């Protein structure tokens, strides 16, 4: 049951995307999201979809594996679509009682849905193709400039990598404790909300105990290896930009430039608008 959760999961395989510098991937995600929210016409979305699938193809992660992560946001997705669908003012397409669906709402809902799906899939590519260690290294170096403002970037990065490392451990632990309590006849599924919440006590108490125990052990182990904060620590494998990373940045910036330009270009927008006015409205 717990095994289905894929947040922050890493997919082990060999690909260009896996070898790419984490900084390129992190900035890439940010730019991809900015581009997504700048689109004003269908051509932009089409470009976004094509780009995303090209990246997925390059990463050699099965599409099925990525879409699994969408299950978790189905409710948010549905709400966004429904709100956009019913609450956007414009020309009425269908009226159901007091609720009206407008053409504008239809377009807005569709656009928002595509945006959210692309957003989740795009950002999950980063974690799927980057080991947690690499990811924090990338963040530490990428955000290194914040040191000027006295932000303890190194410590924050260490905390992040520990937190990420603990996700699978705690998931496994939860799975184990749940099974142990199931074996003692616990029931997590039946009953109302209050009963269900109460039935989690036998899982949460041992889970917290074990989390504290693990944290204590880890702190002791770090202390024993003379960890004393992030400043001045050296790396066994420092991040160095390679040729492919420069290439990656080039592709990235050209994609963002082109897709923002085309996705917002008024000539194209006007063309789609005229199509809409001439064919759909009439």
């Amino acid at each position, binding site marked *: 049951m717990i095994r289905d959760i894929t947040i922050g999961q890493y*997919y*082990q*395989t060999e690909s260009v995307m896996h070898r790419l510098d984490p900084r390129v991937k992190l900035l890439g995600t940010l730019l991809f999201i900015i581009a997504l929210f700048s689109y004003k016409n269908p051509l932009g979305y089409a470009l976004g979809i094509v780009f995303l699938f090209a990246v997925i193809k390059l990463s050699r992660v*099965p599409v*099925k*594996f990525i879409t699994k992560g969408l299950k978790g946001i189905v409710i948010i997705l549905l709400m966004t679509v429904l709100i956009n669908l019913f609450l956007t003012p414009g020309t009425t397409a269908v009226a159901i009682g007091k609720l009206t669906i407008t053409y504008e709402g239809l377009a807005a809902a569709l656009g928002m849905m595509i945006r959210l799906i692309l957003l989740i899939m795009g950002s999950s590519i980063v974690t799927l193709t980057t080991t947690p260690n690499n990811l924090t290294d990338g963040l530490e170096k990428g955000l290194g400039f914040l040191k000027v403002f006295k932000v303890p970037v190194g410590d924050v990065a260490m905390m992040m990598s520990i937190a990420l490392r603990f996700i699978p451990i705690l998931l496994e632990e939860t799975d*184990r*404790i749940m*099974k*142990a*309590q*199931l*074996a*003692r*006849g*616990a*029931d997590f599924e039946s009953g109302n909300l209050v009963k269900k919440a109460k039935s989690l*006590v*036998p899982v949460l*108490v*041992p889970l917290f*105990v*074990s989390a504290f125990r693990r944290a204590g052990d880890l702190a002791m182990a770090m202390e024993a290896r003379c960890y004393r904060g992030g400043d001045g620590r050296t790396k066994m494998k420092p991040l160095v930009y390679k040729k492919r990373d420069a290439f990656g940045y080039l592709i990235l910036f050209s994609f963002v430039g082109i897709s923002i330009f085309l996705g917002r270009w008024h000539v194209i927008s006007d063309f789609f608008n005229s199509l809409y006015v001439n064919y759909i409205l009439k």
Partner: protein
Amino acid sequence: MPLILDHISQIYNADTEHPVKALDDVSLVIPEGQFIGVIGHTGSGKSTLMQHLNGLMKPTSGKIFFNGQDIDDKDFSKKELRKHVGLVFQYPEHQLFETDVFADVCFGPKNMGMSKKETELAAFDALRKVAFPEDLYYASVFELSGGQKRRAAIAGVLAMKPDFLILDEPTAGLDPVGRYEILDMVAGLHKESGITIILVSHSMEDVAMYVERVVVMDHGKVAFDDTPREVFSHSNELEEMGLAIPEPSKITRKLIELGIDADPGVLTATEAADSIYAALMKNK
């Protein structure tokens, strides 16, 4: 009411590039009243197998029958199965959660729908069976020593009055004294109440002294399923699987290679001593 495993296979991560075959076509019959040892290297599939016996996982293929009923059948109650088949997980003390030991032991029988009185009687009975110190019945679980916690956790499963008791590495992380205390306690349970016991371990020595049947798991398959004497006579194959045969068997085996006419099937130190002594006297 035997437990029957019929061609069970379990594959993890089936949809990725690295599927893991945890169990590969395992068939076993576990009749009532036996004391069975399951041994295997880490990752040989023994823990997965035990979870199947408790209906905690659905096999990728194959069927499990309890009392003649398929346990994955829609109208079969998993709770009923868990009442009859008690599973004590590895490091079971990590599952304790109540404010005191007694309340924790009551958790299982309460879930099984026993009345308050029955529950308390069952809990007392279980704590007594595992020889848990009486003055600690109402102590907080965090005040106990490692061995005491483990006894309390085993009592928590025993209180459900199962017909089958599965113990997954019950001695892991205990010192030698604690280890034999637990194993003797388990052997006592088998002798006194006659319940079926499945003892999972990676230590041959633990298993050899107590059980009447040994199942050896290797790479998700059943490699051997026989009496300890018969299984440990395959010392070379066992060593290839990364399993060390009991020390006394090893020594007599070496002596036999050196031409001393000892019994190749010895399991315990006493048996080995007797056999070597007899062989030496014969040569005199």
